[in-house]
C-alpha cells in the first residue's frame, strides 16, 4: 500500500469518525430537558421516579451525564451549540413592553420607551425586531445581571449633552396576559417597577 493511499484511508476514517461524533453530539444536545420535577439537583433523589417512564429516564440520563461529559465543550467551541424549543413547551402568552423613567440632575423626569411592535410600521417592525428579542430575555429575573447596563443605556439615550445629567433610572415592565377561552380578557396593562439604580456620571460618557 502506497503512502498516499494509506494517508487517504486514515483521512477517510478520521472524517467518518468526526461526522458520526458530530451527529451524536447534535442529537444528544437537541433532546429536550427532562421534566421539571427531575431537574438536576433533585435528580439523584428521584432516579426511582425517573425510571417509571423510559423517555423521562432517557432525557434525565442525557442531561446529567451525556451532554456535559461528551459534547458540551465541543459544541460550544465550534459554534454548533443549539436549542430548538421555539414556542415550547408553552409559548409566552403575555404582552410585555419596557420603559425607563429617568430623573435628571435638574429634577426633571424623562420617559424612555423601547420600540413597541404594536406601534411600529411593518418596515420598522422588521428593523427593530432585535430590541424585542433582547427585551424578551433581558426582562426575565434570571437576566437581572444585565439590568444595570439596560439602565445605563437608557440614561445615555435620554442625555442631550446639555449638562443636565441623568442621575436615577427606574425600569418599568408593562404586561398583560392573554386570556384563554372562557377567561375574561383584562385590557389594561399591569405596570411593575423591576429595577432602580443611581447613574454614575462616568457611565454616561463611557466609550464616547
Amino acid at each position, binding site marked *: 500500500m502506497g503512502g498516499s493511499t494509506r494517508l487517504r484511508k486514515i483521512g477517510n476514517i478520521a*472524517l*467518518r469518525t468526526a*461526522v458520526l461524533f*458530530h*451527529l451524536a453530539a*447534535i*442529537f444528544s444536545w*437537541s*433532546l*429536550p430537558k427532562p*421534566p421539571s420535577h427531575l431537574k438536576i439537583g433533585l435528580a439523584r433523589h428521584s432516579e426511582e421516579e425517573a425510571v417509571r417512564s423510559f423517555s423521562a429516564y432517557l432525557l434525565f440520563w442525557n442531561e446529567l451525564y451525556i451532554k456535559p461529559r461528551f459534547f458540551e465543550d465541543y459544541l*460550544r*467551541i*465550534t*459554534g*454548533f*451549540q*443549539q*436549542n*430548538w*424549543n*421555539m*414556542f*415550547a*413547551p*408553552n*409559548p*409566552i*402568552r*403575555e*404582552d410585555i*413592553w419596557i420603559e425607563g423613567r429617568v430623573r435628571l440632575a435638574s429634577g426633571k423626569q424623562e420617559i424612555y420607551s423601547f420600540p*413597541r*411592535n*404594536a406601534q411600529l410600521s*411593518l418596515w420598522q*417592525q*422588521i*428593523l427593530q*425586531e*432585535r*430590541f*424585542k*428579542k*433582547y427585551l424578551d*430575555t433581558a426582562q426575565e429575573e434570571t*437576566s437581572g*445581571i*444585565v439590568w444595570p*447596563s*439596560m439602565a*445605563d*443605556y437608557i440614561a*445615555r439615550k435620554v442625555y442631550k449633552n446639555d449638562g443636565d445629567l441623568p442621575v436615577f433610572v427606574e425600569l418599568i415592565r408593562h404586561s398583560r396576559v*392573554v386570556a*384563554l*377561552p372562557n377567561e375574561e380578557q383584562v385590557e389594561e396593562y399591569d405596570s411593575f417597577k423591576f429595577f432602580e439604580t443611581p447613574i454614575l456620571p462616568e457611565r454616561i460618557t*463611557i*466609550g*464616547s
Partner: protein
Amino acid sequence: MIKASVRPFSLFSRWLFASGAPETLALMRILFCSLGFLTVLYQFPYLEDFYTERGLMPVEALKLWQWKGWTPAFINYWSLSSIQIVWAATVGAGLLATLGLFSRVSLALFVLGLTALQNRAPLLLNSGDTLLRVNLIYLLLSQCGAALSLDSYLRRRKGLPPITSVPLWPQRVMQIQIAILYLSATWYKFQGELWREGLVTWAVFRLEELRRFEPPAFLLTETASKITTWSTLVIELALCTLVWFKPYRNLVILSGVLLHVGISVILNIPFFSWITMSCYASFYSGEEVRAFLAPLLNRLRASERCGKAQTISTEVSR
C-alpha cells in the same frame, strides 16, 4: 445477528458519505448566504446599541450573565468604528459568497464575521440565527462553490471542465440537522399544555407585541386555534419522519412551506421562517435541483452565448 445490525449501518454510511451533483449545496449556499447577508445588513442603524460598550450589552455584563460563547470572540470591547468595519467586511463577504466568487475564502470570512457578531450579542439571537450559523458552517466544509457560482462560470471561461461530483456528507448532515430540529421541537411541544389543548395560536395571534397585524376573525376562533395548533404538531412531526420517504416528501415539504409562510406573514420574527424553509432544499438531490433550475440556467447560458456571438461578429466586422 451481528451481520443484521452491520448492514443497516453500512447502508447508512454509504448514503452519508456518497458523492453526487453539487447543485443542491450550491443552491443552499445562495439561500443561506443571501439570508445571512440580509440579517447582518439590516442591523446597521443599531451597531452601537447592540455591539459596543455604550450599548445594551457591555462585555462584563455578558460575562456575569454566564455567557460562555463560542469561537471566535475577538470583537469584545471594540469601538463603534471597528464594529462598523467588521460589519462592512461581513456584508461584503456575504455578498461575494452568495454570488460564489472566491467561494471558500468569502464564505470563511462571512462565517467568521457573522459568528463573531452573534457571539458579541447573544441576547439578540433567535432559533433562526442558530440555524443560519450552523448551516453556514456546514456549507463552509463543503464544495458549495462548485456550481451556480461565479467561480464555476470563470472555470468554464478558462476552458476547464465543470465539477460534476462532490462529497455529499455536508448536505446529508444538513438533512439530519433539520430533522433533529423538528424532532426536538415537536418533543418539547408535546410537553406543553397549550399545545396539547390546541390553544397555542389562540394565545400567540393575540399578542400585540409579536404579531404584525390582527389576523382575520376566522383565525381567532377556538376551532381555528385547535386546527392550526394541532396541524403544526402534525406537520413538524412529518418533517422529521415522513420527509425521508420519497412518495411523501413533496407533500410534507409543501406543508412545511405553508406553515412557515403563515408564521412569517402573521408573526414578526424576520428571517426565521425563511432560514428554516431554506433547509428543505437539502432533501433534494443535485440532479433534481439542476432539473428544477434548468429553464433559468438555459436562459442564462443562451444570453451568454448570444453575448459572445455579438462580440465575435463585432470583431469580424471590424
